[in-house]
């Protein structure tokens, strides 16, 4: 009763103070990030990044009651307005940021190995109308990486919604500092990420996006990958396609031709625009084993701009990514080469979607540069 009366008094005081609108609390939620460098290592400097789209709750410090819950905007900003039945808190409270979003546009949660969502609570404070209360999720808390993982999923889901005009499906990502579970996509809308001292992928944006790429293959495209290891050597065309596409997904989402993976010894990086991987047998079978990098480099060259580049095609990544939902997802694949989806089927779909206007430029990328013996005779028509 006293709490309610005090709330009403505070509201009245705020109104007399001349502020517009109801009493409110606002601020910015951010997390510390380490940037990837081109050699795959992580920068030592910690940089605050906005925690966009995270779930933010106001918690009563004394009894732990959840007073209200909102979502941060794309700058990490939040505003809580105290409108009936929500009354202004008179006792100390704190903010709790959770690495989850339950909206249809961003159905994402980043969880610990026990499947509880990562959350970080700030210092207790006493509410005062109109003041900003910020929360910086620090690396020292052991939780900043979980929010970086969340942010990579936001990037991916936003691309699906905005660029591909599709509704993303819910995804769960498991990361925890110290976890030796491995980094892989397990086929059940779940991505697993290493948090080990020898190899921690929590800040490795491109590794996280690579695994999310597998998730999108499954949910909006198609994969016939047998799974298993892939180290850049020529391998099963279905595996090479799936892995090469997922690395390309990471590059297309970040719009840089770079893949990096840090580890305790530093790490390694790869540039799909400057590297050149060739098919082992230029005059060989269309279903021959190829390296995953060949797939990534062909896709990048088809999707990037023409200027300052080693190929002549003025591409765009949307045109490349769209082949997954528009063709591979539903089409009956041509009975050539390796059964199941591979680079040949993607190129078939590219010409179906794009027409035959760019035959010469694609031939230069695929055959001249990468020596892959594609036959240019798919369901989209025969290139001259």
């Amino acid at each position, binding site marked *: 009763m006293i709490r309610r009366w005090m709330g009403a008094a505070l509201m009245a005081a705020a109104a007399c103070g001349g502020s517009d609108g109801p009493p409110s609390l606002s601020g910015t939620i951010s997390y510390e990030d380490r940037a990837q460098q081109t050699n795959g290592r992580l920068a030592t400097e910690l940089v605050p990044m906005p925690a966009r789209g995270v779930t933010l709750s106001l918690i009563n410090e004394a009894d732990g009651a959840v007073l209200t819950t909102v979502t941060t905007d794309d700058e990490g900003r939040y505003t809580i307005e105290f409108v009936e039945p929500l009354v202004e808190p008179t006792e100390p409270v704190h903010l709790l940021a959770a690495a989850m979003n339950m909206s249809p546009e961003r159905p994402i949660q980043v969880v610990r190995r026990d499947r509880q*969502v990562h959350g970080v609570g700030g210092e207790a404070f006493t509410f005062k109308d109109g003041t900003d209360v910020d929360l910086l999720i620090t690396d020292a808390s052991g939780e900043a990486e979980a929010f970086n993982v969340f942010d990579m999923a936001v990037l991916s889901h936003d691309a699906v919604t905005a660029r591909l005009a599709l509704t993303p499906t819910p995804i769960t990502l498991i990361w925890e500092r110290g976890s030796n579970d491995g980094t*892989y996509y397990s086929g059940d809308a779940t991505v697993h990420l290493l948090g080990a001292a020898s190899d921690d992928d929590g800040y490795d944006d491109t590794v996280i996006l690579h695994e999310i790429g597998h998730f999108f293959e499954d949910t909006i495209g198609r994969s016939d990958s047998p*799974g298993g290891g892939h180290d850049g050597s020529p391998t099963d065309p279905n595996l090479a396609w799936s892995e090469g596409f997922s690395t390309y997904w990471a590059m297309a989402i970040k719009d840089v031709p770079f893949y990096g993976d840090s580890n305790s*010894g530093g790490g390694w990086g790869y540039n799909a625009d400057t590297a050149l991987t060739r098919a082992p047998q230029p005059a060989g079978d269309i279903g021959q084993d190829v390296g995953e990098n060949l797939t990534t480099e062909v896709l990048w060259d088809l999707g990037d701009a023409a200027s300052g580049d080693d190929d002549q095609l003025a591409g765009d990544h949307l045109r490349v990514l769209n082949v997954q939902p528009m063709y591979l997802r539903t089409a009956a694949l041509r009975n050539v080469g390796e059964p199941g989806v591979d680079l040949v089927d993607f190129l078939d779909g590219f010409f179906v979607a794009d027409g035959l206007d760019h035959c010469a430029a694609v031939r230069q990328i695929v055959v001249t540069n990468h020596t892959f013996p594609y036959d240019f005779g798919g369901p989209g028509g025969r290139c001259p």
Partner: protein
Amino acid sequence: MRTLVYCVAIAASLALVATDATAERRHRGKPSAPVSLTAKAERTASGWRVVVDAAPTRAVDAVTIEIDGQATRFGATAARDARHLVAPVKLDAAAGKDVVVTARVAGRSQSVIVRVGAPAPAAKPLPVTVRQINGVSVAEVRQ
């Protein structure tokens, strides 16, 4: 009867292969380095040493092994031909150390950490409070 036994055995084998393939298919991992890397700590008369074997999975132009930041480069190496390296580690009595071992092969790398000497002190987990937010369990760590 014998034919039936053979058929059942073949069917069981095929089912096992299918199960393995399905399990493998569910696991699509990150790009790895083409190398098999093993490292272990061994006690010597004068202290400790780290023993490393790095075998590329295919023929490569070079294999570089780093132990505690010291790099050793080996030349062209055939597939599955392990490069062997031993490095002494200086430690005070009763001390312990994490030694990072890295193999760099064909533009990619893999690292492991070898504990030498006394075991590392157990990390104390941060206290966690579990709260229900919109029906979801959230593990809260306070900063």
